């Protein structure tokens, strides 16, 4: 009988880790700056998922506070990047 803890440890977390690696390839490759911004945003969003699974596994609900802050930072970062990339061309 597979327990839920083992399932989270050996299936869910590896899938999320492989996702972060694949996105990181795009972050390194990405021909334009905007590709990198989107990849960074997606890495942070995946990080929220990893933190959630880790909070479930370690039975510590406090980690969800970190997820709130990460969601806020991801949004602010994307908006700031978009704002300055758009203004950059006018100079």
């Amino acid at each position, binding site marked *: 009988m597979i327990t839920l803890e083992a399932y989270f440890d050996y299936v869910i977390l590896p899938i999320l880790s492989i996702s972060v690696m694949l996105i990181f*390839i795009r972050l390194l490759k990405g021909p334009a700056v905007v590709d990198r911004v*989107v990849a960074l945003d*997606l890495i942070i*969003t995946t990080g929220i*998922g990893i933190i959630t699974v880790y909070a*479930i596994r370690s039975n510590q*609900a406090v980690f969800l506070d970190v997820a*709130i802050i990460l969601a806020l930072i991801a949004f602010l970062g994307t908006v700031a990047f*978009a704002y300055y*990339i758009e203004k950059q061309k006018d100079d």
Partner: protein
Amino acid sequence: MIDIVLALLSTVGALSILFASIGILRMPDFYLRLSVTVKASTLGVGLLLICAAIMFPDVSVTTKAIAIIFFLIITAPIGAHMIGRAAYFTGTPLWKGTIADQLAGMYDEETHKLESEENEGDDKENPNIAKTDEETE
């Protein structure tokens, strides 16, 4: 019983995030990558957070999880729209198989306003579509 529900929700969530990451790696140009990743990643993280809300019997955890899901659903499309608009202004080329670019010539280059009439001087016949795969890859 509740273990099966948790396993199902977390599997679908993790697979959504995996498909989003495969999409950002494999899609041929920036706009397709943007459209693939934002929706799938929001769905995946939302399902994982619902998992956490079911797992902890505390009311505060449920409220926190719902707050994060609500925040993600509100902010992800706004961020995606802003970065897509910035990409269009800085001249990121579209995929070479693109058939129509209906925004071509509709933006005012000076004021960054969108207009329904075509501006004079801007050529709608010449949208910013890539000639080869290498430009957008």
